[in-house]
């Protein structure tokens, strides 16, 4: 198991929390909650070790288009980057309602 923690500067308070996904093989769940302070925090737990650089790249890209002050928890069981991006987008959509 690997835990990766990332943070990104953020200001915009998000309307609500949201949960998306299932920790199935090749999939992940995302929990997104409003955060306090000045940065969005991401905590990733994954059963596939050694891909920290890939995770950083995916999250960097995600945050280049997302400005929410959020606390994001990802529980991953080997999802491909495309699936991760999809779930993040779904979580954001759900949290903006």
């Amino acid at each position, binding site marked *: *198991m690997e835990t990766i923690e990332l943070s990104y500067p953020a200001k915009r308070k998000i309307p609500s*929390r949201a*949960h998306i996904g*299932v*920790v*199935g093989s090749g*999939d992940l*769940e995302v*929990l997104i*909650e409003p955060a306090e302070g000045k940065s969005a925090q991401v905590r990733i*737990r*994954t*059963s596939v070790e050694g891909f920290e650089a890939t995770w950083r790249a995916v999250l960097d890209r995600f945050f280049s288009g997302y400005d929410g002050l959020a606390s994001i*928890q990802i*529980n*991953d*069981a080997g999802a491909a980057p495309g699936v991760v991006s999809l779930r993040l987008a779904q979580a954001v959509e759900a949290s903006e309602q």
Partner: protein
Amino acid sequence: MNTPAHAADFLRRQSFIELNARERANVLVDAGTARELLGPFDRIESPWLAAQGITPQADDGCVVIKGKIAGQAAVVTALEGAFQGGSIGEVSGAKMTAALDLAAQDCERGVPTSAVILLETGGVRLQEGNLGLAAIAELMNAVLVLRRRAPVVCLTAGTVGCFGGMALVAGLASYVVMTREGRLGMNGPEVIQEENGVEEFDASDRSLIWAIHGGEQRQALGLVDALVEDDVSQIAEAVRASILKGVPSTHRSSEIDLYRRRIQALDASRQWDPRELRTSWNDQPHTEEKQ
């Protein structure tokens, strides 16, 4: 069969099987009444998985929704088949048992509260071994206690089916609802093939699998109360109808004389085509048996 009416019905169908556990539980409850308990944000996870390199799920693969069904108080617990095969760990087992305990307490206080258990599960989560097995035993007790006061409805729609120790929970249920895709049995085909060889059970033979474990066969043996299409509204209606029937006058697991006779009548010297049992087993259960 291809009249416009049939085609329109088919198009209007919404697959239940394609929904995840949370979605399934929510569609069964009257709109505007659902309240999830111990949801993912409560983060009560398995304490045992991370140490084994398995990523825990925030709800441990079990969803609990309290609400109303057909206007009556009910709790729905749904196992997520996509997480560890819907297997029972310490937490997922405890969630189901605690929910049924609370439903029974409400019944005692004069608020009849039914339970609906969505079973997509292979049984015990081996990574939690004895705590998973013990959790199933405790859940079985909770079913025995609640079913005297309010219906316990077990629903298996597929694709995982209901196997292992959790099949005993289905055996104790007041009502069982299945789709044709759903399967119900104590031991899955792979396990039997492992233990007693491919002659005993060829796990690659799909038609054999459904011929023995499939919803249609189980219904033909009188073991299922409603066999429904994979359609959200039909399944929700079957669950509602079960709850409205109330506590049955007898439970299948108490019909010992009936089933003992059926077992004694079996010619165990050969394998049978499962369909052979359909005629002899589909008579009405005797009601003289007292519990």
